[in-house]
């Protein structure tokens, strides 16, 4: 049950020959998989490829019609291992994940897969999470292609090219017995465009056929002596086969004039940016015409030496445009030029930046510098280049830097993880600061203000493992935080098992919000929803007890800040050795609201008695210290200017987006803050009894209020 329904997108998957698909890049890839006769699809959700998983999860009928098996893999490693179905059988398979984070996890299986090679086409779709909007370390997936000798496609970022890359990728994989990776950057995954669809294809050979006719070949297994044969096969057969296929099918492209003093070589993914930069320099137009020869590597690996040499010969210099460090392709170019004794100068990251995103201004500056070095006349009467420098240098604009606040992502309104960290702050006040190992997931927002909790993050499900060195006698214990997503991905064995086995004397806090929330609210093992296609409702507490944990506490309502605080305190001070595991469970509010809101609205419409809760602040009581905000950070708990001339600072205020989670009240109660908060319970469709009681109460209360008001000597308002 993902965060949003993809029912409409599922319709797009059904488009047939000649119809126009309009939509997001990642959904175009999904459609392309079905057009390619894929037999099975797996993967692990994460930005920017979550939608591929989500739409397939919602497309059960389409998949059934086509006989395609779809699986939400437990991790990227599981997904990569799934591709082993294509080792012996002529079935096409595709898996997807966020890279390089996921590729790291999958690397073991990928190495084995690429060593033995494949029979059916194996495609790995990598959401290259690089540059603006990325949430992971900035690395290149390219390294995995080189070390395992898998091929890497990096198509031009438009829908027809991306779709073609999927189709070509399967064929390339089959032609060279090698798994193929297809990298798509964040913006390309989310790019809206269009392409002409084809009919979906049923797999030519089915998994059922494979299961019923097992084939075995010991030479495909990574054990001596086969492993040495694999190496030889990779270099002597598969590589040349791939090169031939890529050349024959013209997967790489040449644009612009045939001749020129200089040339630009780029990865396909860089094409649109380079073209915009050239357009701004007056050397290209928006329809793809260029005055400089361009060589587009839609295949990032392997490099097609003959094509490169053909492009470079007769040119004074070329520049390689590849994003991220290190400059793998540029290095290969140097090797190639040197081996063949070609005098064309090779540039790249000597002119362009070593790291960081290649934005339009970065490319324009770099390309301009390159052209000025070799062919200055080309620039000629160039149009004025867009340049905001004078605006940015104006004092009025510079003053903005002081005023415009940073706005990082944070916990949503009513998030059940907020009270957990509020409780940790309260414990911190009593017992001092602790070493906190964080993990991957929404809970990592704790490292930001207002909580400022969490020292390191080492990977998905590795939080507690990353605290394992601190298993020594000391006056304080370490705290490790891990989400339910990380727990099932890797954490149960690698973190909890490790802690149990080594008697790790620390606190492990498992944040259970019923979903893989950060990636879009997909179901996982311990999700509470009933999912007809998956087995959910597997208890985290049972799992940790099952592998030997003894000190285990379950908290069923994280909003109970006092209980959360006391349980944490108990865990930090308990005499018991070994891991102290707290499972803190409450449903992700974003998903809960999506689930509950329509139900609530329907019940109200049907005339059922319903109670709607939200919080408020009594402005008169609030003194504007904002201590409540420092323990919350909830988007709906904000401040407002007051017109009271005796008050200097803004007072707290709760806006209409409040979902009534209760955190404000619980925190102010547990932290002894102030009595400004109130919860307003509105009874919709009250019963006769409700009305009667309310009338009686109002009568008495109203009479008392009027009595006091009458006795008060005050100025009229």
């Amino acid at each position, binding site marked *: 049950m993902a965060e949003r329904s993809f029912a409409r997108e599922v319709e797009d998957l059904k488009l047939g020959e000649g119809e126009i698909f309009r939509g997001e890049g990642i959904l175009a890839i999904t459609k392309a998989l079905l057009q390619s006769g894929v037999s099975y699809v797996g993967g692990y959700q994460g930005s920017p490829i979550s939608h591929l998983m989500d739409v397939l999860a919602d497309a059960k009928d389409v998949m059934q019609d086509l006989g395609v098996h779809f699986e939400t893999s437990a991790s990227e490693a599981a997904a990569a291992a799934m591709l082993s179905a294509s080792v012996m059988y002529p079935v096409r398979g595709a898996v997807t994940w966020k890279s390089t984070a996921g590729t790291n996890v999958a690397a073991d299986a990928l190495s084995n897969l690429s060593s033995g090679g494949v029979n059916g086409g194996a495609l790995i779709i990598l959401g290259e999470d690089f540059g603006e909007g990325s949430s992971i370390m900035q690395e290149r997936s390219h390294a995995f292609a080189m070390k395992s000798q898998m091929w890497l496609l990096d198509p031009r970022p438009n829908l027809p090219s991306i779709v073609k890359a999927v189709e070509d990728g399967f064929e390339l994989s089959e032609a060279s017995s090698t798994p193929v990776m297809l990298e798509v950057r964040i913006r390309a995954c989310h790019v*809206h465009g269009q392409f002409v669809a084809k009919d979906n294809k049923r797999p030519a050979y089915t998994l059922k056929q494979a299961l019923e006719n097992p084939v075995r070949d010991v030479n495909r297994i990574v054990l001596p002596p086969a492993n040495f044969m694999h190496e030889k096969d990779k270099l002597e057969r598969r590589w040349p086969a791939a090169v031939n296929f890529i050349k024959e099918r013209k997967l790489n492209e040449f644009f612009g004039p045939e001749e020129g003093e200089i040339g630009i070589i780029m990865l396909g993914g860089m094409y649109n940016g380079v073209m915009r930069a050239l357009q701004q320099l007056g050397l290209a*137009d928006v329809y793809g015409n260029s005055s400089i020869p361009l060589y587009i590597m839609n295949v990032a690996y392997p490099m097609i030496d003959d094509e490169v040499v053909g492009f470079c010969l007769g040119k004074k210099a070329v520049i390689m445009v590849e994003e991220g460090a290190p400059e793998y392709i540029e290095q290969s170019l140097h090797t190639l030029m040197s081996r063949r004794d070609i005098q064309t100068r090779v540039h790249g990251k000597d002119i362009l930046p070593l790291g960081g995103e290649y934005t339009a201004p970065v490319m324009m500056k770099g390309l301009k510098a390159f052209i000025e070095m070799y062919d200055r006349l080309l620039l000629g009467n160039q149009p004025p280049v*867009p340049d905001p420098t004078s605006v940015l240098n104006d004092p009025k604009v510079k003053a903005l830097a002081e005023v415009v606040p940073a706005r990082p992502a944070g916990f949503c309104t009513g998030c059940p993880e907020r009270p957990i960290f509020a409780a940790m702050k309260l414990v911190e006040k009593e017992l001092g600061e602790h070493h906190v190992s964080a993990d991957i997931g929404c809970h990592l927002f704790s490292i930001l203000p207002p909580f400022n909790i969490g020292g390191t993050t080492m990977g998905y499900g590795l939080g507690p493992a990353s605290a394992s060195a601190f298993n020594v006698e000391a006056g304080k214990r370490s705290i490790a935080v891990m989400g339910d997503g990380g727990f099932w991905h890797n954490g149960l064995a690698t973190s909890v098992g490790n802690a149990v086995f080594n008697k790790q004397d620390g606190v492990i806090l498992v944040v259970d919000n019923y979903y893989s929330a950060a990636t879009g609210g997909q179901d996982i093992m311990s999700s509470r929803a009933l999912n007809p296609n998956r087995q959910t409702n597997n208890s985290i507490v049972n799992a940790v007890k099952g592998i030997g944990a003894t000190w285990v506490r379950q908290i069923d309502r994280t909003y109970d800040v006092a209980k959360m605080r006391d349980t944490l305190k108990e865990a930090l001070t308990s005499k018991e050795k070994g891991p102290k595991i707290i499972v803190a469970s409450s449903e992700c509010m974003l998903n809960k609201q999506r689930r509950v809101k329509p139900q609530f609205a329907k019940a109200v419409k049907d005339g059922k008695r319903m109670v709607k809760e939200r919080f408020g602040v009594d402005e008169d009581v609030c003194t504007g210290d904002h201590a409540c905000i420092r323990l919350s950070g909830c988007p709906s708990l904000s401040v407002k200017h007051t017109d009271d001339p005796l008050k200097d600072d803004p007072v707290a205020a709760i806006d209409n987006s409040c979902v009534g989670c209760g955190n404000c009240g619980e925190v102010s109660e547990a932290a002894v803050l102030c009595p400004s908060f109130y919860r307003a319970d509105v009874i919709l469709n009250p019963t006769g009894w409700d009305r009667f009681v309310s009338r009686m109460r109002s009568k008495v209360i109203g009479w008392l209020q*009027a009595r*006091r008001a009458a006795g008060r000597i005050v100025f009229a308002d």
Partner: protein
Amino acid sequence: MNETVNLKTLLAADKPLTLAILAMGGQGGGVLADWIVGLAEEQGWMAQSTSVPGVAQRTGATIYYIEMLPARGGVPPIFSLMPTPGDVDVVLAAELMEAGRSVLRGLVTPDKTVLIASTHRSFAVGEKEKPGNGIGDPTVVVGATDFAAKRTIAFDMDTLALKNGSVISASMFGALAAADVLPFPKEAFETTIRGGGKGVEPSLKAFNAAYDRAKSKTREEIAASPPKRFDVMPETTGHLELDRLVHRLRAEFPEAAWPLLFAGVKKLTDFQDPVYAGEYLDLVGKLYGLDRANGGEEKGYSFTVQSAKYVAVAMAYDDVIRVADLKTRGTRFERVRHEVGVKQDQILYMTEYMHPRMEEVCGTLPKKLGLWIESRPKVFAWLDRRINKGRRVQTGTLFWFLTLYIMAALRRTRRGTLRHLRETEHREAWLNTATSLLSRNYDLAVEVINNRRLVKGYSDTHARGLSKFDRVMLSLATLADRDDGAAWMRRLRQAALLDESGIALDGALKTVATL
């Protein structure tokens, strides 16, 4: 070479229309982007949008980017996936500071960019969490956007959308239609909204309201902070005691102090009674006398003016009685009904989150009894164990209402309570410090009065405020005879309001110590 020149002349000069949307995750920037793309496609153009939602979907600042241009002879244009600073035709900012951010990113330039911005504020955590006022100055943003944009349409599109039962994407789409930057008629915009299928009528309503608003008045005036409410002093109130207070105020004080004095008098009659407000005037009157004697006239009697404000704040301290009083008033019940938006056929109950401690109970007791308990830690602890816990007070039920109502009635005995004694002592010490400085360093004396701002909040927060107040006051030994003493005191106070634990204040105090 000639060949190249020829090639260059063959290049088309067409440029795509470019639009950037700066929004916060969850604001519906994606819906707006989809509408714009849909609109262009329906009009036969090619259009591309990109975004980098990532984790920014969770309330962080994010950007959507759109390019559009018709295909030429069947050749689709090549669109960029990210904006080039200095080359954006339209920037849509879904919040005021996001408009500022768009300028900082170089997306808004005077030669090209039409800026469409909603002027409402959604405060960032960094602004909200400051113990003082951390809100960014909106006039700086207005100054910068006015300078940077070719043309600006700016008003509160969020409130306008809400008023029309919709969300900000609809009103921004309306403002975009009104801006006449896209070569499409208004009807085409409306057709796009209709095609969306969900919430069409409210969306159209908000769209049209924003369209009309943008056509009639493109700009909204924005002040640094909204004005304070100074009530007009009534000639007569219909009550003798109140009339006497107003009369005294006019007769005994300089006009500059009237607005704050009246605010103070009003607050204290409400807090206690007219006699208490009279005591306030006595007290400020004495300070005014000293002010005059020390050349206050030249300084516009700022000592008196600031005393009028902060003595009132100090006298209207936040105690249990005050909270119980405010929570049980009929006007408060009405206000909550209004804020929550309770309809006629619905029933409202309020639950207050209170956590009384023995300290508060002692404070409310007669001073001798309070002191007696306080001096016996065992008794105090025994009682605290019974008192000190969170209580959910349902003010709409008879039991809890009566409990609070009776507590509020303790107002009559307030002047005999331990808390009142403590507050009076603290106030006197503070005012003595201030008045003793008047002849030596007038400006510094005013700043000492202003330091009362640091004391606020309840329980721990209150204690922290008091400790900051004390620490700031310690620097008086160094500052008393310095000409720039007042400026330093002001800086110390600002530092004290920057963070909770007083790290900035520690730094500032160290600097002062080196003077």
